């Protein structure tokens, strides 16, 4: 019984002695232990709710959120993932310190609790409304009046928010949207939100609204430069990677520029644990990164030189495993799954012999349907040309031979020859470009050549990709003239000694690692893996760094094998239930096509970064020469848009609605006539491409939605250009357009405009830089206050968000927010914006027949008269689209009937009727009046979740089986057993809440998951003979598009990092102010946040040093008289940063790391240079776009949203660092 004593007795109780033990040394506890109740009570809680963090992170970890007394108190990781099986490490407990700090936000002072609006704008709005103007007119009065507009635009980013009512802000947003559509066209309404997988419903909320109104939806993966262009180039796949548990299957694991413990925190243990199972781990990094702790060998390659190391390793593998000995496993793999045996023609121009495009069936005869898209090999057995199945032509010729089966109709097998070395008709000296040094030379190498007859009886000289690779890599095979390169020959590419001179990596170690990597693959049939990421991918020439590294996994037969292949980890994400999600997110159910715009091109022009380009110095020219490398990237981008390669929204200077109306006025009777009319107008330069006049106010993006994103504090590369040109806020741009390189075909007359956007709306639960610059900030529900779903590449599960508490204050989920906006929009549209038709352009898309629009990869510009202007062929496709604006709300909240026609992606179609029937049952019918009545109801976020789960193969077995059936029809292969056994599975939200579920193999992805197998990409290709979605249908070493060859980039080669800046010649430099140092400026991902998320919490700030900080070498620091934790400023022509310095010897001299995305909202004083608030990590960056990424209309190089397009690289940056002598908080 509980005893009650008086206080005095209680206080004296501890004097009581216990039983003495250990010879009187200790005593057993005699005391009452009442005080143990305090911590027991703290631990008690009322409920635990399963949720997760919708942050741009590949973790996708399931969390337990604790609620006590109605308050969210804390979170711990869930540990109940379905098992990976006996003898295999489990996924529990996925999470990281960042996620663990999330509950801090719920009640924190940084929380946006109510709708806020810029005070100046609110005053203007109030005044208009009080004068009796209706909302749309009120907006027009403000936006169209330069003085009124300037009043609030110029106030951006300077504080002064006021609270507003939800209804009011919705009216302002809806009115500005309607006004913009009417005045400029729907494509001037733009939305940016990244990474759907992190919270699919919240993404879909905004993208569905934008899709219905015809607004522009920006891509993010390419813009973030996380897209590895090598992936579409090599595989025709955006990105597909192994789940992290598959690392445990690897037996040799190279970690190459991706900081697994720091940025793949929940996954890293699989790599660590694999080591105990006998796996060797090698780390390549330019600093002693966290992952080196787990390496057996550290190869410290200098930043940006990774390609050189990879090529030397390629050299070693080719020499030792293809020439000195032949590994049957490697040879079979190369013949079946790579383009190495495919024939390439040679282009002889006097002495200058270069490799040309692939030989096609159409070159040798006319017997093949789509023969210009069918590639050719030499059969080693029967000594003649063969056209194996599976190349691009087979995909679209209407047959069912799109497969990798080398068996011919007569039952015999094609035996592709890898090398003509033993049966060459002649040897030729072929030129290869060499860019490793400025004024690089051409490398000449001997190759074996075969003579074949073309269909006109002419002799064609051909060789194989394999022979080209061998020659290019400098592997001696005894061919006359060949540069016999020894490993320790430092002068000839691509030897181990050659790489040492560039990378600093000891040549013996480099060769040793290459040898072990290949030997391991030979022993294990491909269980050699390379994890790669931001450190290797964020470079201007990332495609070549990646292709060089991919050489290693392709040559060792490691790709498409569990435990082997590439493992790209930066910003990659996976919406596992992709088929259904796409329908909900882009309103395919209502057949109103979305405008998918590649983000990099959009921001490049919208922020006027194209007017600050740096012209390559003439001394950088090489003997190779290149027409397109000398073109201004903006000119190439404009050409790309014109030829239908890349999308380009806003489309035309003219409103896309007006185009239709005017064509009709001119007598166009039907849609085809309207398109024809517009094409004529374009040819006559009466309709103008917006991309050629981006600074014309007609072409400004007018309304910009930013949700689930901190565009300005985080991902706005060239932050200061954003601030200046797009936003019109305070900026620190120091570069001079006059001294910069200007394009020809893009109009740059006049001063670059400032403040292009009429209305900037941010939706967030915390105040970030993006919020600070916005006109309206809407209070979002946090991730513990809403329903959604999450998935990732890194694990195979789909799991939910659940609301632990309802959104507090006036917060709303994104789904509810966009639903409310669409409701007000539709109400106002009744009077202001009736149903309209508009003309919509779209690029030549990958995985549609448009990808074979431009044969042989030859560039033909209709404007130059090189070809006819034909929509969908030589220019973008065009269609007339009906947009019923007053019905947007009804469509937003129901599933449309178009589903019944079937749906899918990547060329895979799922039966629509059964899915639609399931939807009606699971979602219920809408009873709301209007066009959606009787359709499946999607008013609530939970219904949207069920819709996605029902329609997607990963979460619904019937859909999965349907997807494989669809692929069977094209490939002629038996694929139905891939998903067999799981057909009856149909996960619901409640199922996922009970426990995360293992996704089902679906034809939208390339990995096999049956029998609890770990996901590894392309295992479906290697095991079921499904082609890659490339020209040859195989994994590509060689890219034969005209622009690629012109650039000299047909084969993987070494291109050194650029060294832009810090200024261009002639620019005014910052005033001298003591010692300074110029460094390579790198922004790898940080440890204390996922981008700017979590970084602003007090746990994360205190676990390091608070923000912002920049790391550099301590000797470099000493050279400019700064000590650890001193204030510094970092600057160049692009802008300036104020930060504190972290000195270390872990980073080599000459580079500085400003870990990515600390945001400038915390602890950032003014800079001395400009006396303005110090910038973000992106204030000294500017995107550099690579023209070869703009290629389109050509097989795997055709456009796809987040699949191709120039990436927003920013790593090739030089910046100056010096002490910031006076700290001014600029609080005046």
């Amino acid at each position, binding site marked *: *019984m509980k005893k009650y004593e008086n206080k005095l007795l209680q206080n004296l109780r501890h004097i009581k002695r216990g039983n003495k033990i250990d010879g009187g040394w200790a005593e057993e506890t005699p005391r009452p232990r009442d005080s143990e109740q305090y911590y027991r009570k703290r631990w008690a809680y009322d409920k635990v709710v399963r949720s997760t963090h919708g942050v741009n992170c590949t973790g996708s970890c399931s969390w337990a959120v604790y609620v006590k007394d109605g308050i969210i108190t804390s979170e711990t990781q869930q540990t109940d993932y379905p098992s990976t099986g006996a003898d295999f490490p489990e996924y529990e407990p996925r999470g990281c310190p960042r996620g663990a700090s999330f509950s801090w936000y719920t009640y924190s002072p940084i929380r946006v609790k109510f709708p806020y609006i810029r005070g100046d704008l609110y005053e203007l709005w109030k005044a208009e409304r009080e004068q009796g103007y209706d909302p749309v007119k009120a907006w027009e009065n403000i936006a169209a009046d330069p003085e009124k507009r300037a009043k609030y635009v110029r106030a951006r980013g300077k504080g002064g928010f006021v609270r507003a009512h939800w209804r009011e802000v919705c009216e302002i947003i809806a009115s500005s949207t309607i006004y913009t559509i009417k005045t400029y066209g729907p494509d001037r309404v733009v939305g940016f939100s990244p990474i759907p997988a992190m919270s699919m419903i919240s993404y879909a909320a905004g993208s569905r609204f934008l899709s219905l109104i015809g607004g522009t939806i920006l891509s993010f993966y390419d813009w973030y430069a996380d897209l590895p262009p090598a992936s579409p180039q090599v595989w025709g796949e955006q990105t597909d990677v192994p789940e992290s548990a598959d690392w445990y299957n690897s037996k040799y694991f190279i970690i190459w520029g991706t900081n697994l413990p720091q940025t793949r925190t929940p996954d890293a243990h699989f790599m660590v644990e694999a080591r105990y199972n006998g796996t060797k781990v090698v780390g390549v990094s330019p600093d002693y990164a966290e992952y080196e702790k787990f390496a057996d060998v550290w190869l410290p390659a200098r930043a940006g030189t990774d390609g050189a190391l990879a090529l030397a390793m390629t050299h070693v593998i080719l020499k030792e495993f293809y020439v000195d000995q032949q590994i049957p496993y490697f040879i079979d793999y190369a013949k079946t799954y790579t383009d190495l045996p495919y024939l390439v023609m040679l282009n002889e121009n006097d002495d200058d012999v270069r490799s040309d495009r692939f030989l096609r069936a159409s070159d040798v005869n006319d017997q093949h349907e789509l023969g210009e898209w069918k590639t050719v090999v030499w059969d080693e057995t029967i000594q003649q040309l063969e056209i194996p199945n599976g190349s691009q032509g087979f995909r679209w010729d209407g047959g069912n031979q799109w497969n990798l089966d080398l068996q011919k109709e007569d039952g015999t097998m094609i035996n592709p020859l890898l090398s003509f070395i033993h049966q060459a008709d002649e040897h030729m000296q072929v030129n290869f470009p060499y860019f490793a040094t400025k004024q690089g030379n051409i490398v000449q190498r001997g190759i074996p050549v075969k003579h074949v007859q073309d269909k006109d009886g002419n002799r064609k000289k051909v060789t194989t990709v394999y022979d080209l690779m061998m020659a290019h890599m400098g592997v001696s095979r005894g061919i006359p003239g060949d540069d016999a390169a020894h490993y320790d020959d430092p002068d000839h590419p691509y030897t181990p000694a050659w790489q040492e001179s560039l990378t600093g990596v000891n040549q013996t170690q480099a060769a040793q690692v290459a040898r072990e990597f290949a030997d391991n693959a030979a022993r294990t049939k491909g269980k050699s893996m390379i994890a790669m990421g931001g450190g290797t991918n964020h470079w201007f020439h990332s495609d070549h760094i990646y292709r060089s590294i991919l050489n290693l996994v392709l040559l060792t037969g490691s790709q498409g094998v569990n435990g082997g292949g590439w493992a790209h980890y930066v910003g990659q994400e996976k919406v596992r239930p992709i088929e259904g999600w796409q329908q909900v997110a882009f309103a395919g159910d209502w057949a109103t096509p979305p405008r998918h715009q590649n983000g990099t091109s959009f921001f490049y022009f919208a922020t006027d970064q194209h007017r600050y380009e740096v012209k390559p110095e003439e001394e950088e020219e090489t003997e190779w020469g290149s027409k397109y490398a000398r073109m201004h990237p903006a000119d190439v981008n404009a050409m790309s848009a014109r030829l239908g390669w890349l999308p380009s929204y806003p489309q035309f200077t003219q409103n896309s609605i007006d185009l239709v109306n005017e064509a009709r006025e001119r007598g166009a009777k039907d849609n085809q006539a309207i398109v024809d009319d517009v094409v004529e107008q374009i040819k006559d330069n009466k309709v103008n491409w917006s991309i050629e006049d981006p600074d014309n106010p007609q072409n400004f993006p007018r309304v910009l939605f930013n949700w689930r994103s901190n565009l300005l504090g985080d991902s706005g590369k060239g932050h200061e250009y954003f601030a200046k040109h797009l936003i019109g806020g305070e900026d620190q741009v120091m570069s001079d357009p006059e001294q910069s390189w200007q394009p020809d075909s893009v109009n740059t007359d006049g001063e670059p405009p400032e403040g292009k956007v009429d209305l900037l709306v941010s939706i967030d639960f915390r105040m970030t830089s993006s919020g600070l610059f916005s006109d309206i900030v809407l209070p979002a529900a946090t991730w513990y206050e809403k329903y959604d779903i999450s998935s990732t590449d890194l694990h195979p599960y789909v799991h939910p968000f659940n609301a632990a508490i309802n959104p507090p204050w006036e917060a709303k989920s994104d789904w509810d927010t966009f639903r409310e906006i669409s409701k007000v929009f539709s109400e106002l549209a009744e009077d202001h914006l009736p149903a309209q038709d508009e003309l919509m352009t779209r690029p030549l898309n990958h995985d549609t027949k448009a990808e074979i629009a431009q044969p042989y990869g030859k560039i033909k510009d209709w404007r130059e008269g090189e070809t006819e202007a034909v929509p969908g062929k030589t220019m973008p496709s065009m269609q007339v689209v009906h947009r019923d604006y007053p019905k947007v709300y009804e469509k937003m909240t129901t599933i449309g009937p178009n589903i019944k026609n079937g749906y899918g992606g990547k060329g895979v179609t799922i039966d629509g009727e059964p899915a639609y029937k399931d939807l009606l049952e699971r979602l219920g019918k809408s009873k709301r009046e209007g066009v959606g009545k009787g359709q499946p109801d999607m008013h609530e976020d939970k219904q949207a979740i069920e819709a996605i789960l029902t329609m997607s193969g990963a979460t619904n077995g019937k859909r999965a089986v349907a997807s494989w059936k669809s692929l069977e029809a094209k490939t002629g292969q038996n694929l139905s057993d891939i998903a067999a056994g799981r057909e009856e599975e149909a996960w619901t939200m409640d199922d996922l809440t009970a426990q995360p579920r293992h996704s089902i193999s679906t034809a939208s992805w390339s990995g096999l998951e049956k029998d609890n197998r770990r996901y590894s990409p392309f295992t479906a290709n290697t095991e079921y003979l499904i082609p890659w979605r490339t020209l040859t249908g195989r994994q590509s070493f060689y890219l034969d598009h005209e622009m690629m060859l012109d650039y000299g980039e047909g084969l993987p080669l070494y291109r050194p990092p650029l060294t832009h800046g810090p200024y261009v010649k002639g620019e005014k430099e910052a005033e001298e102010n003591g010692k300074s140092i110029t460094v390579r400026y790198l922004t790898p991902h940080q440890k204390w946040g996922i981008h700017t998320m979590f970084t602003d919490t007090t746990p994360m700030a205190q676990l390091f040093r608070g923000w912002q900080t920049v790391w550099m070498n301590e000797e470099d620091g000493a050279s400019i008289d700064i000590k650890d934790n001193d204030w510094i400023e970092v600057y160049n022509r692009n802008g300036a940063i104020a930060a504190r310095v972290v000195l270390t010897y872990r980073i080599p001299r000459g580079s500085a790391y400003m870990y990515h995305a600390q945001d400038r909202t915390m602890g950032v004083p003014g800079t001395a240079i400009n006396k303005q608030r110090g910038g973000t990590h992106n204030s000294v960056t500017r995107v550099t776009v690579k023209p070869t990424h703009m290629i389109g209309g050509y097989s795997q190089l055709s456009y796809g949203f987040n699949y191709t397009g120039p990436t927003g690289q920013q790593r090739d940056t030089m910046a100056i660092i010096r002490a910031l002598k006076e700290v001014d908080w600029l609080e005046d």
Partner: protein
Amino acid sequence: MRIKAQVAMVMHLDKCIGCHTCSVTCKNTWTNRPGAEYMWFNNVETRPGPGYPKQWEDTKRFKGGWFLKNGKLSLRAGGPMSKLTKIFYNPNMATMEDYYEPWTYDYDHLIHSPKKKHLPVAQPKSMITGQYMDKPEWGPNWDDDLAGGSESVLMDPTVQKLQEHISMEYEKTFMMYLPRICEHCLNPSCVASCPSGALYKRDEDGIVLVDHDSCRGWRFCMNGCPYHKVYYNWNTHKAEKCNFCYPRTEAGLPTICSETCVGRIRYIGVVLYDADKVKDAASVEDPQDLYEAQLGVFCDPFDPEVIEEARKAGINEEWIKSAQDSPVYKMAMKWKIALPLHPEYRTLPMVWYVPPLSPIMNHITNSEELQTDGYIPAVDQMRIPVEYLASILSAGDTDVIRQVLLKQTAMRVHMRAKNVGGVDDVAESQLIEEADTTVEELEDMANLLGVAKYNERFVIPTGRREMDDDLQYQQGACSIEELAPPEGVAPPIQQR
């Protein structure tokens, strides 16, 4: 023989990814409130580095733990008389500068700033004074990943001792992480340091706690603990420390730091020890003998005599079975791969550490040396100096460290031989012999360290609450005793 049960932990440093999740989840649960801002019951240190609080291993300054005075075990900080002289000013106590001044930011300003000339910013401000500060000057993990470079590293007391072995240059860089909680020692000097007798070691599971009702805030525990793991709450004026999450372990759940450990480095299990051997073990002359002496305190849970004695001591079958299945027993006592942190403090700490492997030095390019068997580098080429590890984990005895590293390497080589091949049989068996182990043991190790299923990492019997006061009463009244005084109406509740 007096058998007692102790719930203990192993942290496998080779697995630690230095992510600090443990610190955050622990803090959210236990010390996220005024007065506790600087309390990190669990923290993670980058080594080499000064640790938290700064240079806590400097026993000369802080005078924590025990030492041998004329062969007799004594508190380094002095006995009761000496304490009395320092009771109002203890010169050996760490100050706020050794910890840090907790800070936050003026977040509110971002939302509510009036219109100004420049972008609003949230300035840092002290959580202690509420005043703006220009910049934080130190924190609980200020030197993460060698931040501060040689300036920070030179503050490491171990580095100061071992300068000739440690070179602070890029190519020779090494680092490791050291997560720390309270050691829940068998011979806790914090308990002995408290003038109020407010600290105690629980008899049933060995968890060391502060009795908050008795604590008078004298703070001798703060520096009396050589690990500096007792904190003082300036708000409540009571000491607080890691409680091994007893509300969880009593329910059979691992501690928060273990449950949420993303590197899966933590193992929790029961060990049985003879409480009558503690003093002698802590009193051996040579500090390098302390590790072996400590091992001598533990009992073999399979020994029938031990089992009998344990039963007599009231240790029930489930606890005995847990001791038999204990991962801590396997790693620390059986395989001897987990070592105590600073055994020379003579507190017999009960958190054990497996020392980490590390990459070979870059200057090793001799292909013979590179070509070690199965591609796994040999122990003597690794870049973390064995002397450094020994200084932390074995009172300087490098042989102990080398042996553990050898065993881990042998495990990797053997598993590679088994799963991949390409390993020379003779070389492998030589390695196994040198590591003094067997194939069976190595495979058991690979399973526990690598596969590491939840139920094998954490073997925790539920708390023995049956020895508590009236459980039937508490079933309905716990946490609301004030509303439900036990007297009741009638009949009186059955008493034990």
